């Protein structure tokens, strides 16, 4: 049943292909299937428990599964099933990863299970591809996913829809793994839309709330706009290659397309449209902040660590194609850096703790696209990984804060928005662990040495500079601008993150007297994942310490064999793209950055970030905040403009949504009802009118009938006789 496709032999037939060590993955399909199993089991439990709640609803009483001394089995079992399958999947992924490291294979291993769509010359297999890139992603998805599942046990433990929550979450991981492990664009698209579905379901998890289910819907529809781009790109690829599998496409792309040709540019731009939808990049970023309506662990898993990075993964996966289309790369980088900047400015003025983090995510994703746009695909993946660690940590930390605020709000005086930072302040006293780990994440995202974000973000900015300086880069000046914007954004990032921390954890408490007495640290089932993620946020960056830094700080780094480990690990995946880029722009692309060595830049940027952090601490802590209910909101044009998210939603509403709805109404009321049905009914009425006119001849007078009959006979006879 399980057979290796012969194509796997063809893989990497490009430049240098050292004889690959034989490597047999252990039950790779099971990694994907385990979360699906979890979904099925939890789904059954969810449907069972829903029967009880709906029955109670019909009888007009409330059903609280946690009323008794022990919750029912439907609410106990998911605790073990949900995180359990994730633990197993992670363990299996880890085993396979270690096996891969040991064997160090050069070529991807493709496992095909069945022919999914097989017709004519089209063959899309239900197949998974294990290579260095997909294994890294699998580890992130299952690893971070597992931690978030564990955190969810604490966060969602008292929710009546507990089993349903885990069913969706497991289903999401399943689709995410399909996306990551799929062996071709076709398979990837299954995961691509599948995660969109789960995102839809999870954002609208509390579906009785209109706003939340609106947000889910918005996410789905905006994602679909991107998906159309993905679809069309697939069609173009199929037309070019007759297949959608990664291996033959990437192996043949160089021979097939002229660098910078129209087709390849179209393909990559369309793919970028898909990526922009999924990863919330500029024209299509509007859904992600709304998506914060979902439970906070969902925001951590889907809207920070994994799903939204799918676009980056896809672009990195298609590195060969992008390397062949410099124009598209410029567009990708431009979209990325603009998104990063816009989102960062918006984050400056938000008060909702999750909204700040959401815009921060959009901004960081922009950085990843910038990386892909400057050909630094490894850096993109590197930032993706570190971002998964520290952003998941930030979201989960925010979740812990909201969790505490939620309990406080229940006992507080009057209405209290539990996510509004103006209602927080001074939480450090109540939740020291959360505060500590979130500071680590903040320093990581701000780019302070030696936290994870420093290495990854710095690499991106460095590459942008390198491309701006590359002599034969047709868009050199553009890249210089990008580089400047990226730097600016990095500084803003440090500022708004510090603002968030100070507003939440420091200064005076604004929760209210009665409420603040209920504030508490999260239970250990939530804090342990936080601590694990904090550790990863510190050390995660060490997997790709630049050689330049390694040399400059030889004494410090000599002990670590990790120098540019990720870069080397991904080499088989990215070397074709790198080769193309080197051929196109010369070695300069990877040589000296603008004005000086890498180590110098690293130092400067760390210092700059540190200054921003200090400035933000000073600025924020000296400012007096009032509670949300009493705050009139930001004053002044620019602030209001930023606070209202640059009015993107309003503009889209006026330019897209309203015209489409109005057009729909017009089609219905005018075209369908008046024009087409008008014509149809006219023919009907015309026939009726003609019938009425003819019926005037029907007098009921027999003599008349006989006369007309005779007349008819006369005519017929006359015709036969005389004609």
């Amino acid at each position, binding site marked *: 049943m399980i057979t290796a496709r012969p194509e796997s032999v063809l893989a990497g037939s490009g430049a240098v292909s050292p004889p690959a060590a034989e490597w047999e993955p252990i039950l790779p399909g099971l990694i994907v299937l385990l979360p699906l199993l979890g979904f099925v089991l939890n789904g059954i439990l969810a449907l069972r428990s829903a029967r009880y709640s709906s029955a109670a609803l019909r009888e007009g009483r409330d059903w609280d599964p946690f009323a008794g001394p022990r919750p029912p089995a439907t609410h106990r079992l998911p605790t073990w099933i949900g995180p359990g399958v994730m633990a197993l999947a992670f363990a299996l992924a880890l085993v396979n990863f270690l096996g891969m490291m040991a064997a160090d294979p050069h070529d991807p291993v493709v496992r095909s299970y069945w022919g999914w769509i097989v017709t004519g010359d089209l063959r899309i297999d239900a197949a998974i591809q294990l290579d260095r890139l997909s294994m890294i992603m699998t580890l992130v998805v299952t690893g971070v996913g597992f931690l978030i599942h564990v955190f969810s046990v604490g966060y969602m433990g008292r929710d009546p829809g507990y089993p349903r929550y885990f069913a969706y979450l497991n289903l999401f991981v399943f689709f995410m793994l399909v996306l990551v492990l799929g062996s071709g664009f076709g398979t990837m698209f299954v995961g691509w839309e599948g995660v969109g579905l789960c995102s839809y379901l999870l954002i609208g998890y509390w579906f009785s709330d209109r706003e939340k289910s609106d947000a889910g819907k918005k996410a789905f529809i905006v994602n679909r706009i991107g998906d159309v781009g993905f679809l069309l790109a697939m069609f173009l690829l199929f037309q070019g290659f007759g297949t959608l599998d990664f291996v033959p496409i990437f192996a043949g792309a160089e021979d097939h397309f002229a660098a910078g040709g129209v087709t390849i540019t179209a393909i990559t731009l369309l793919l970028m449209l898909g990526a922009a939808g999924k990863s919330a990049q500029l024209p299509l970023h509007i859904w992600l902040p709304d998506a914060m309506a979902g439970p906070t662990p969902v925001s951590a898993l889907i809207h920070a660590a994994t799903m939204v990075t799918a676009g980056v993964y896809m672009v990195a996966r298609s590195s060969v194609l992008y390397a062949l289309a410099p124009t598209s790369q410029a567009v990708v980088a431009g979209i990325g850096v603009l998104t990063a900047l816009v989102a960062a400015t918006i984050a400056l003025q938000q008060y909702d703790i999750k909204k700040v983090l959401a815009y921060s995510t959009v901004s960081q994703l922009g950085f990843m696209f910038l990386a892909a746009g400057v050909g630094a695909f490894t850096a993109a993946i590197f930032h993706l990984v570190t971002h998964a660690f520290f952003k998941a940590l930030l979201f989960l930390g925010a979740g812990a804060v909201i969790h505490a605020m939620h309990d406080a709000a229940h006992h507080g005086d009057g209405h209290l928005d539990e996510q509004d930072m103006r209602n927080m302040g001074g939480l450090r006293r109540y939740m020291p662990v959360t505060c500590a780990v979130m500071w680590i994440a903040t320093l990581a995202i701000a780019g302070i040495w030696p936290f994870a974000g420093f290495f990854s973000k710095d690499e991106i900015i460095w590459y942008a500079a390198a491309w701006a300086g590359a002599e034969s880069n047709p868009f050199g000046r553009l890249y210089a601008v990008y580089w400047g914007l990226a730097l600016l954004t990095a500084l803003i990032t440090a500022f708004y993150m510090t603002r968030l921390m100070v507003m939440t954890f420091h200064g005076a408490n604004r929760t209210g007297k009665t409420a603040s007495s209920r504030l508490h640290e999260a239970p250990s089932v939530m804090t342990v994942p936080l601590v694990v993620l904090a550790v990863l946020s510190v050390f995660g960056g060490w997997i790709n310490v630049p050689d330049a830094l390694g040399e400059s700080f030889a004494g410090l780094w000599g002990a670590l064999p990790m120098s540019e480990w990720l870069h080397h690990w991904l080499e088989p995946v990215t070397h074709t793209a790198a080769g193309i880029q080197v051929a196109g722009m010369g070695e300069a692309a990877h040589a000296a950055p603008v004005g000086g060595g890498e180590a110098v830049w690293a130092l400067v940027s760390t210092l700059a970030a540190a200054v921003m952090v200090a400035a933000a601490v000073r600025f924020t802590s000296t400012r007096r905040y009032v509670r949300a209910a009493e705050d009139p909101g930001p004053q002044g044009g620019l602030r209001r403009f930023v606070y209202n998210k640059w009015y993107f939603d309003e503009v889209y509403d006026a330019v897209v949504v309203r015209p489409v709805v109005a057009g729909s109404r017009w089609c219905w009321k005018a075209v369908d009802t008046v024009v087409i049905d008008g014509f149809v009914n006219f023919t009907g009425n015309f026939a009726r009118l003609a019938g009425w006119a003819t019926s005037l001849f029907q007098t009921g007078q027999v*003599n008349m009938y006989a006369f007309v009959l005779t007349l008819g*006979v006369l005519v017929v006879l*006359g015709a036969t006789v005389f004609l």
Partner: protein
Amino acid sequence: MTDVLFVLFAVVATGGGIGVVTGRSPVASLLFMVATLASLAGIYVLFEAHFLAAIQVLVYAGAIMVLFLFVIMLLNLGHDYRADLKYGSWFLLSLVVVGLTAGVLVQGLMGTGETGLRAGGAEVAAALDAAVVEKGAVGVIADPLFTDYVVAFELMGLLLLVAIVAAVVLAKPRDPEAGE
């Protein structure tokens, strides 16, 4: 001789026909009709159709006309003597149309009939006469009726049966008590 008789019968038949149309009372029209039927029976004899002539008188002039007469009397019609003939422009118009129809028919007869029909007519007539001699006036009709046309004949019987039932059902006075 036959020609004379034919002319006589033809005149009576035509006159009777006109009488039917113009008769002032139903009974008068009926009697004119009987005259027409009788003279037509005479013409049938001239054409050697003895059996038809007989049933023309018996069934048509006798039975059917009497049925008409019964109905007229049953309904007590004809006392008002109201002229139910439509005079005026309607009559003239009808006359024109009917006249034209007659003209067209005559034209058709003159154009195609004579020569075509006369040819070969003699042998058929002779054969027919021989058959009458051989089988008798009834036999000559009965023979094909019960052989080649037996299905049609049986259907005729069925039709008559249906007609009788229908007539009974239709003419039966509706009993208001039955609540139909």
